[in-house]
């Protein structure tokens, strides 16, 4: 299991490092919100999911998309604006999608996918499926009214959904304490009747363990659950650089998070040969993905008008 978690973490890390590295060449025609430092959240949770389970995320969605099994080639091609991208080049880094593996969307407007996830969970319950939905969002999203509304409805209908708050303590450059009257997000959640717990230290193994237990309960029909995972963003909010020089946060603050890097931690838990093989394979996969993106064509002009509407009805109702 360490090996597969390490592979998942390392895949995301390498992909994003490569993204940051080539960003200055302007081949990526899209803003990028890197997850470096936060990979553990998507990985720890998604490792406990089934392929038919569904996730919704945010513009900071590379990690989630990859952790849930999205094609790396299609993702890099999407960032390059190529027609082979997962959204045919129309969505960019902020609108990743992979319905074939249950990635049902990521949005650039904070908080918007939370109720979408709830609705999907409603449909699963309605269809008596034993799948579940996981909704990923940041600490900032919990300030949007839609968060409280969504919690209430999910709890009222006892839906099969896990809410995961990736608390990196910042919304862009503003610390949580300057935006939230109390920083105890779990207390706000339990007040809606949803059991909530916090992982305080980005610990991927602890998260994996808790997520496994929690998703089991959700599948058993015990209603929604909430997980807050404290984590840290190493790079700037958007873009390929570090930003400690801006002064809104200090390198000292980041230090403990960097020292407890889950990628390094898991690397050390995997036997050297296995680990080296993983690293070779992942590096090859990453370079392949960039080569694929580079070699792929841009959409042609006729694509502009395609897919505003779905033309034929999927079911013949009448």
């Amino acid at each position, binding site marked *: 299991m360490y090996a597969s978690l390490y592979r998942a973490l390392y895949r995301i890390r390498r992909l994003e490092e490569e993204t940051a590295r080539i960003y200055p060449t302007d081949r990526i025609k899209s803003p990028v919100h890197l997850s470096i430092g936060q990979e553990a959240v998507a990985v720890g949770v998604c490792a406990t999911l089934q392929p*038919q*389970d*569904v996730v*919704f995320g945010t513009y900071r969605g590379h990690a989630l998309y990859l952790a849930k099994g999205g094609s790396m080639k299609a993702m890099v091609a999407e960032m390059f604006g190529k027609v082979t*991208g*997962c*959204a*045919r*080049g*129309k*969505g960019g880094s902020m*609108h990743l*999608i992979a*319905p074939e593996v*249950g990635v*049902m*969307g990521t*949005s650039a*407007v904070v908080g*918007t*996918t*939370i*109720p*979408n*996830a*709830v*609705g*999907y*969970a*409603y*449909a*699963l319950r*309605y*269809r008596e*499926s034993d*799948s579940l939905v996981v909704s990923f969002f940041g600490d900032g999203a919990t300030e949007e*009214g*839609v968060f409280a*509304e*969504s919690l*209430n*409805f999910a709890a*009222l209908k006892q839906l099969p959904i896990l809410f995961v708050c990736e608390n990196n303590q910042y919304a862009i450059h503003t610390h949580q304490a300057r935006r939230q009257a109390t920083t105890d997000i779990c207390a706000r959640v339990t007040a809606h009747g949803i059991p909530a717990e916090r992982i305080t230290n980005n610990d991927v193994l602890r998260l994996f363990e808790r997520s496994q237990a929690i998703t089991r309960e959700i599948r058993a029909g015990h209603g929604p659950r909430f997980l807050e995972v404290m984590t840290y963003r190493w790079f700037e909010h958007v873009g390929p650089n570090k930003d400690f020089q801006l002064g809104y946060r200090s390198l000292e603050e980041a230090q403990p998070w960097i020292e407890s890097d889950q990628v390094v931690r898991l690397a050390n838990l995997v036997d050297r040969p296995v680990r080296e093989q993983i690293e070779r394979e992942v590096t090859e996969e990453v370079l392949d993905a960039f080569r694929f993106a580079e070699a792929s064509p841009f959409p042609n002009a006729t694509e502009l008008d*395609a*897919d*505003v*509407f*779905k033309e*034929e*009805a*999927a*079911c*013949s*109702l*009448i």
Partner: protein
Amino acid sequence: MLTHLTPGIQQETPRTETLTRELSYVEALREATDQAMEADPSVILFGLDVDDPKAIQGTTRGLAEKYGPARVFGTPLSEDAMTGTAIGMALAGLRPIHVHIRMDFLMLAMNQLVNVAAKSRYMYGGKVALPLVIRSMIGKSWGQGAQHSQGLYSFFMHVPGLKVVAPTTPFDAKGCLLAAIHDDNPVMFVEHRILHFHKGPVPTESYTVQPGRSRITATGEDVTLVGISAMQPECLAARHYLAAIGIHAEVIDPIWLSPLDIEPIVESAEKTGRLVVVDNGWSNCGAGAEILAQVAERLMGIRDLRVRRMGFAPVTCPTTPVLEELFYPNARTIAGAARDLVEGQPTGWIPEENPALRGIAFKGPF
């Protein structure tokens, strides 16, 4: 991850020649919903108060009992999240119908409607579809006032990725609602409280009135009247006032506002040379502006033409009846405007009120 259920009911063309049964607009909506739910278990219905004793003016009456609380349910007061929830359901292959007792309340749902529903299919490269119907009602009369009277459909016409329909007869109410439910895209279904009281022939079977087809509701040669939503019956009444003074108006009901079927309007305007668009909302950047702009783009240089918009007065809707009366166009003011256009000058003429042509009046409390 879910696949669509495929129910076995066939599409039928309504046999308009055998239309002997009369239903109210409310009953037509109820029947359409019932038939759709009967035909396809993926159709579900929710919104504030859909399952309460008033049952959204009766349009959802009995459906909670018939289909159970998992398919028909009232919601918390959470328009934003419930719209997002509807979108999530649609992503999962359900066909939700989300009902709002007032169009004004959609302002709380704009983020999900404009930023998510309208865009998902395109921004995800065609990977998803959103079969979603949003029903909402425009209020009028008896002091509905500022926040319970708006006809804001032009917002939805503005945004690619949404369809908009505002049926004006029981026949179209049923056929358009079935078409909307049948559609794999988000459809804004616009109702008017006054139209709810109207009665008309409605076939018993399932049928659809498809997107993008307008209807000539009365023919004439002298002036074209386009009436949207509750202004359609006002235009038909105006036609009678005009006929009495020898002016023959053609009346068109766009039915679907997006996609908009401009062709018959252009043809009629080309024939009559005069076009009045009567909107059930404000004129500025409204549906009427769009229709005039399209007609101008098409006919300028081809046909000498006079055009005119009518709509809500450019103020907030007042509650007091004396001002509310001035706020809305009505059959008589429409007739007056049409005559002015025909004569090419202001005549000041407003016909004497004919009680037989008076619109349905709504009396309180609400």
